[in-house]
């Protein structure tokens, strides 16, 4: 009787142990810190050690595609700017354009340029559309 439950217990512990180890290992391998552009510039050199996800608005007319297929642009958040170069191989999302909100995943290099391997973008007006009324401040939507 006890031996049987021992077997169950051991199998369960073994399965959960392996999965737990995979999970902890997986977290270590893919954890990314959410920061705003401002916070990254405040972190100084320590920002270079971590994988970061930086959110901000894409500065208008800052998007430049160079001949190596890399895309350069500038993110701005509350007045602080950061230069970003996108080196990933997935196509940039269609919603990524001047003025859109973007999340860039990657690392800050010593030259102060953020090398992003993944970009997510949402067009400020889309998904949850703000009504395009002349005076949005007074409309009654919550």
């Amino acid at each position: 009787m006890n031996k049987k439950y021992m077997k169950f217990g051991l199998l369960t512990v073994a399965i959960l142990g392996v999965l737990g180890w995979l999970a902890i290992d997986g977290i270590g391998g893919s954890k990314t810190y959410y920061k705003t552009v401002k916070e990254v510039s405040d972190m100084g050199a320590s920002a270079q050690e971590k994988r970061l996800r930086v959110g901000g608005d894409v500065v208008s007319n800052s998007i430049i595609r160079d001949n190596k297929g890399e895309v350069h642009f500038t993110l701005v958040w509350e007045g602080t700017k950061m230069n970003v170069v996108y080196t990933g191989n997935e196509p940039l999302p269609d919603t990524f354009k001047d003025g859109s909100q973007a999340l860039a995943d990657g690392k800050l290099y010593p030259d102060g340029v953020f090398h992003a391997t993944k970009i997510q973008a949402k067009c400020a007006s889309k998904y949850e559309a703000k009504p395009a009324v002349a005076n949005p401040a007074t409309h009654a939507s919550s």
Partner: protein
Amino acid sequence: MENIGALCILLAFCFAVYAILSSVIGKIAKRPFLVTSGERAVYSIWVLLTVAAGILIYALIQGDFRMAYVVGHSNRTMSTVYKFTSWWGGQEGSLLLWSWLLSTYSCVVVFQNRKKFREMMPYVTAVLMTTLGFFLLLISFVVSPFQVLMAGKGIIDAGDGQGLNPLLQYWTMVIHPPMLYLGYVGFSVPFAFAIGSLITKQPGEAWIHVTRRWTLVTWMFQTTGILLGAGWAYAVLGWGGYWGWDPVENASLLPWITATAFLHSVMMQEKKGMMKVWNMVLVSSTFFLCIFGTFLTRSGVVQSVHAFAQSPLGKYFVTFLAIGIAGVVYLILNRLDFLKSESQLESVLSRESSFLFNNLILLASCFAVLWGTLFPVITEAVIGEKVSVDAPFFNRVNIPIGLGLMLLTGVGPLIAWRKSSFESLKKAFAAPLIAGVLVAVGLFAAGVRHFYALMSLLLCTFVAVTIAIEFYKGGRAIATKSGQNLIAAMIELTHRNTRRYGGYLVHMGIVFMFIGFTGKAFDKDATFELAPGKSAQIGNYKLSLTDFISGQTPDYRWGKLEISVSKNGENLGTVQPERRFYTVSQQPTSEVSIRRRLNEDLYLNFAGSTDDGSATVVQAYVFPLVSWIWIGYWVVLSGTLICLVPNKQKLIYPRTEVVGIAGKHAQVEN
């Protein structure tokens, strides 16, 4: 109009509160007329919500641009179908859809059981109406779909609206949200019956028998919804992914996982009277995860590509969840005596044990996904920094889990109840295992070195062969007895025990899906700059740009590439990836071209032009085996539908029946 709509919702809310009170008071004070009156309130709510939904749809189609919701999600130029579907294009409307669906389900439940289960029905009604009341509270007082645009005290007519996001103007996206909602909402019914039976201490497993079809149907809708979302992402988003472990995707997966665990573990309760507490926990977890999923999509608590704006709904959902979970936990603890198990586990090598481990790893997967999804919220609370984990984390944990599940899918249905021996296992599984190993060895010899891919295809073969043998053996037995041909005999076999053979078909569908997922290990991609007349190579495919055409419609400007494709020198014709630029929303979208074949898809995306305009940028991908995911879905769907068909003759399951070839063998040994 909008006032009538808002009034309908408000009245529906009051009726829901009335239905809760009159059902429960009627039951406790033994006043049957109050219970009946509560049931009638359920029908009235459906009428009220139908009117409200009708008004909203009418406003969307007619273009009543005084209403905030219409301005936000409809416009003058969209086709009527998309105007209709903008009903669930935004937060307020989709909450109305939620409520309407739940009220429809509630009507069906109340009507079906108007003469049955008089003991527990009042509580079933009360649970359903509490859930509905919560959603009606939100759309009456917090986010009304009937809000008009105001400037000071005057109503503004905006003239035209923003329209539905062009990315969402695609047929799968039209039915994806209603399907998911049908699944999410539907789980309220088994939950309500479980709670009703718990409160009234119903003897036996009445609630499981009543809700078996509900559970299957809602599971089917959830599966459909998830796969539609995946199919949409694959065909529309332009990078050929179908699953990105995005928080909102995870939110739809979580209740699906617990629902799947529930579908399996109820068999333990039906046949052995075991795991009663566990089933209560599973059905409640599924229900709360459905609510949690709605919360996650609607509150902006976790950043997501689907991100809806931050909204004030979060605290309401948290309150509802907290009260609900506390109530259910109290109820289960209070009724522990009533939920005592009727038999015990006897061996690690038994059907019971395979169910147990199936549940264990499904729940582990659910927990890992939940943990990963909420990781930013947890780390922010604990260390004050938001830290997220990405796809690599989820894949790392879930791929081994998936493989383990696949193994159990093969072993579980054939292993004997109570106790099995290694000898009988050897007999049952030798052939499938040899087939699996042969496939893996063959692939290894052909140069495949990806460990998980080899394991996955080995297990897929193993499971497919076990299922095929089951059908063949049963079919042959009938064929020799009745003289039918083998195919007719297999259909007869399935009809005799729809639940078992339908279940096998579902498993077969899952095998196909796993084959499709495994293809991901062999993806190829490349980005080309193609000038007219130039060509490029990806895998065995040669792509040559022959022409570039462009034009304009009222909604968007478009450019199309004509690319002629050849494979190993054989001409395969031309494909036309297209790029559109929607004028109203100032948003570009890609209409990728996909050449779908069973062995691999060729997927081309027209990504834009080089800055000097001399060449076009084309992203090319080869996705092996991806079609098997969609084929697998259709097999799962037909298997589930077969499970819903009643057996030709009613089968009676004695509690300790021994099923399967391994089981028969074990019987002989006894």
